[in-house]
């Protein structure tokens, strides 16, 4: 166990270091897209805490991503808040949203939970459209020029610079991975797994399952919200589409492709899926056809996702 954990820790740190170093060798374009993939990977990682580890399938996680996007973007746009302040505020607001939604949604289980999260997210999406005078509705809002660079701890951070954005994304990803690692390796990881595997039994072993699920839900939603805030700030645009159902589905797909219940799975899924779409769209606009076929193939031959299958067959210590 100890040795496995060590191996796993080293692997994850190595991946983070590799991501950091990549910026010195890869093309400009790869830096730009990898930045986006990492941010969406963080979003999917948050989703994975709930789905992959705790076994709760939310079909509305875009509401937290969207909450982060808007809680960061609106104060910047309307009140000229500083970027770091807006970022922290957005994380806090996502946390609050996750607690409130969690308390409501966790009254239900399985199919009902799935649909309830879907409905709540839909309500959130519609609310963004409804308050279009503030939110910009479906057209969205372009962040003002002034918010594209800011001073932080004596440093001037220029968000229009690709390398800066890349490193911020690596940093946030590292925080996410490390926090998740500690969480999953610790007693909550065991508890989450236990709930996923057999909720009734876990309750009869003296665990407050509901609290544990709420905790998982909150962590998951907060991480998703942080990803949303990062997206708004790094790419300078907020829009209702980020709270729409396709982003909820995207988190699920990334996670399933990379491997649910593995820390790096969602990131891997995000990278592979985005790259695939990007490369396929050079040769055909029917990339969704291929994407569909690939998804079907995955479920047929890699049901646990890539890392999930690798973990099951070869690397049981993988977290």
């Amino acid at each position, binding site marked *: 166990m100890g040795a496995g954990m060590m191996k796993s820790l080293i692997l994850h740190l190595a991946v983070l270091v590799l991501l950091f170093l990549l910026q010195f060798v890869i093309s400009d374009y790869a830096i730009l897209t990898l930045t986006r993939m990492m941010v969406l990977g963080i979003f999917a990682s948050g989703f994975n805490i709930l789905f992959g580890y705790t076994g709760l399938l939310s079909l509305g996680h875009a509401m937290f991503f969207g909450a982060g996007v808007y809680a960061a973007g609106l104060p910047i746009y309307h009140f000229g808040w500083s970027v770091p302040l807006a970022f922290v505020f957005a994380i806090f607001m996502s946390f609050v949203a996750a607690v409130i939604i969690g308390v409501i949604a966790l009254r239900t289980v399985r199919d009902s939970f799935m649909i309830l999260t879907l409905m709540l997210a839909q309500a959130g999406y519609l609310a963004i459209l409804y308050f279009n005078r503030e939110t910009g509705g479906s057209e969205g809002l372009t962040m003002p020029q002034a918010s594209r660079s800011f001073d932080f701890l004596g440093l001037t951070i220029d968000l229009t610079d690709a390398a800066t954005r890349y490193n911020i994304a690596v940093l946030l990803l590292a925080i996410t991975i490390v926090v998740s690692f500690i969480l999953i390796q610790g*007693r909550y990881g065991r508890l989450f797994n236990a709930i996923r595997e*057999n909720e*009734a*039994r876990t309750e009869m*072993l003296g665990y407050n399952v509901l609290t544990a699920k709420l905790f998982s839900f909150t962590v998951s939603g907060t991480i998703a919200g942080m990803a949303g805030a990062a997206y708004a700030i790094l790419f300078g645009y907020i829009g209702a589409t980020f709270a729409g159902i396709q982003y909820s589905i995207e988190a699920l797909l990334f996670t399933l492709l990379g491997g649910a219940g593995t820390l790096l799975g969602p990131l891997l899924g995000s990278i592979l899926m985005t790259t695939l779409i990007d490369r396929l769209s050079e040769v055909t606009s029917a990339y969704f056809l291929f994407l569909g076929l690939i998804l079907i193939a995955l479920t047929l031959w890699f049901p646990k996702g890539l890392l999930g299958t690798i973990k099951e067959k070869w690397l049981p210590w993988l977290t």
Partner: protein
Amino acid sequence: MADVTFLKTKDLKCHFGGIKAVDGVDFTLEKGEIRAIIGPNGAGKSTFVSLLSGRTEATAGEVEFLGENVTRLPAYKRVRRGIAYTFQITNIYKDFPVIENVAIAVQSRLSNSGEKTGAGRIRAEAEKVLARVGLSQFAERKAGELAYGHQRLLEVGMGLALQPELLILDEPTQGLSDSEVSDFCDLVKEIAQNATILLIEHNMDVVMTLAGRITVLNQGRILAEGSPEDIRANRAVQDAYLGRGDE
């Protein structure tokens, strides 16, 4: 009396629609006992212990454990107060290693009693439990791959890992071979040195070997209660078993 009663129910009822699964049971259990509950199928035995453990909510009546009214407490809180329940239908984490099954229980006990929950400590305690139930050699095997008898032992081991005051065993020997049953009886006797045991059992040999007292349920009510000898001689009990009991 200075001592509080260990476990007591007052007029406990549980109705599902029109079905009166448990219908007014007054029941007491003293600390240190091994008590068996017997009765024909559908007598309400499983529902009754579910009411004790909190898996099922009572329609009316009270459950008192160590002087505290626990009727409205959720199951996990009762577990924390010392009521452990092992399932009639084996209910383990089938995809996890055997030791992990026990570790989950150990972690629960340690964190609920405010003790340190380091990985090493949990593992050591879990190994101890596995040794007690004789599953040490299977520690790293997937629980779902164990033989049925071993899975039953694991189920008991998970209860044991909680170091409960009261261990409720719901038909623990069902499906075990004769030799496994006798090993099992020895294990229960050993456990009984530190815990009170409430046992639902169909195998009368097991009941007679283990139980100090026996409670007979029929149609949701207590039909008789007493020592094994008393029960054996009880006319009403024989009637209940010999066919009057429907279902």
